């Protein structure tokens, strides 16, 4: 077995799930939240010539998506190392 003990295995998975939950929360807020549900409210704010809700729907959410994946990648890399389950 790759983990040092069973507790480590459980802790690793739990930590992974909590990271997923945080990142997917951001994913949801920028796209479904800012781009769709609250779009009308945000559209009253102007942002570099855009209505803010419109900007999130057609530009901003995509930039955040890219950032989320890179954050996940680097956090997981550190976590794999900490638990000794990284690839050689």
């Amino acid at each position, binding site marked *: 077995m790759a983990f040092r003990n069973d507790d480590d295995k459980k802790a*690793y998975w739990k930590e992974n799930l909590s990271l997923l939950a945080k990142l997917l929360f951001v994913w949801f807020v920028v796209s*479904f939240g800012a*781009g769709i549900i609250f779009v009308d409210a945000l559209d009253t704010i102007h942002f570099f*010539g855009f209505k803010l809700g*419109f900007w999130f729907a057609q530009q901003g959410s995509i930039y955040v*998506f890219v950032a989320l994946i890179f954050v*996940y990648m680097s956090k*997981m890399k550190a976590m*794999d190392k900490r638990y000794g*389950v990284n690839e050689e």
Partner: protein
Amino acid sequence: MDVQLLTFIIVGATFALYIAIAIWARAGSTNDFYVAGGGVPPVLNGMATAADWMSAASFISMAGLISFMGYDGAVYLMGWTGGYVLLALCLAPYLRKFGKFTVPDFIGDRYYSQTARTVAVFCAIFVCFTYVAGQMRGVGVVFSRFLEVDIVTGVVIGMVIVFFYTVLGGMKGITYTQVAQFCVMIFAYIVPAVFISIMVTGHILPQTGFGATLADGSGMHLLQKLDNLSVELGFHEYTSGSKSTIDMFFITFALMVGTAGLPHVIVRFFTVPKVHDARKSAGYALAFIAILYTTAPSLAAFARVNMIETINGPELTGTSYAEAPSWIKNWEQTGLIEFTDKNGDGVMFYSGDERNEMKVDRDIMVLANPEIANLPAWVIALVAAGGVAAALSTSAGLLLVISTSVSHDLLKRNFMPNITDKSELFFARLAAGVAIVIAGYFGINPPGFVAQVVAFAFGLAASSFFPAIIMGIFSKRMNDKGAISGMIAGIAFTAAYIIYFKFINPAANVPENWWFGISPEGIGTLGMMVNFLVAFLVFKSTDEAPEEIQELVESIRYPKGAGEASAH
């Protein structure tokens, strides 16, 4: 030099490049053919995934769609990019660790069931054929407009090229050709967008030009102008939506989940050496895709203003048909622009109400954009090469999934388990060849419902594969019966809803008749929920998955020990 000669030269040069790469990267084993030997570096895999994903629809149609839809076009922008977050966080690393060749492989092994495998194979083949017919059509449209050959010849040329490098190189050939195609396609998309952005707003980056003030000295913002024009001409305001909030939500969600469940995208993550690389290449893929996807809405807005001003004139009184610019005449020949002089004054007028005299097809916006903006001939030729690259790269990826499903999942795993590697490779090549011919046939004789079935493909992937894979990874105890009944219930529900509104009773396809106001495009989201719910209920009343399967699931949850993707 005239446009046509330049187009021949540029498109010809890109074809020569693809063929050279195919010869250099030909496949020697099934491992090469299915997953490129599992040795593709993450950055290159990211580019290949981006090219695989961005189809003729992304390249040719999307900006045009947004141009006509305004804010509502965001469903495609967010839907087709947000799925990558799900893919990178919830699917790709675990499937890479699992280390098999195909999606049906995962479903079949995880749910220890040939039935599950077979259901998955047929879903995969259906989704891929739906898509590939549209791609071949895209090649045909580009060829017929820019090279002035007829659509049949265009499709045949496209088929021959794809046949050559798919059959010869398999995944390995496809991957490296897709890297080249990505470069061609992104360059072809960005160049005209930058030119137009500078002309309209003085900004080099289309992404900032989108929100900038116009360069004509009026001090008005581009989007403000577009809103004013839209309202004046009887369209809805460009930056506000016409779809209901719930429908926007469901369509976006279905496209995201569908993206994450599409077999030709998932299979790309089997080609990298390590689990960490799978996460990384999903990140690169989305970054590369984002270049095109953040440019598209800008291009859409510029194109809209340019088109309205060219047809209606700066005073919005219309312009004389006799002096119409050459792009209008060029596209009239393809039937994608029509002018009906209703009031008989010889003047063209475009609007969203009864004054309208123009019919402009949305699909021409990207291709006609350089002509509308009077860009140099080489830019027009470049756009043609980009459109062909987009269509070819996606077709090749889809055809590979079809051929793998037949030779690996059906023949090797079902009917001929003792087949040698060499004859399996032969069958894979044969299946790819047959699939190309069928796809070409649909490209030349498109069934009238190609556009409708696209919604179907996404809904199907969203309501079948995605929940089955997610439960396979995140629930150790989910069993075969739960997963199979979930998949069948999800697909059946989604298919029934779409078939009813699209084919049986299209007249009823209005918001008043939709369940909860959800259009057929967005119903995959509800289908996904049905899948989860049915799987859970069946699982609760049957035995949980056996011990060895639970151990298998635990072992895919951490990276250590990921070997090459293999058949054993």
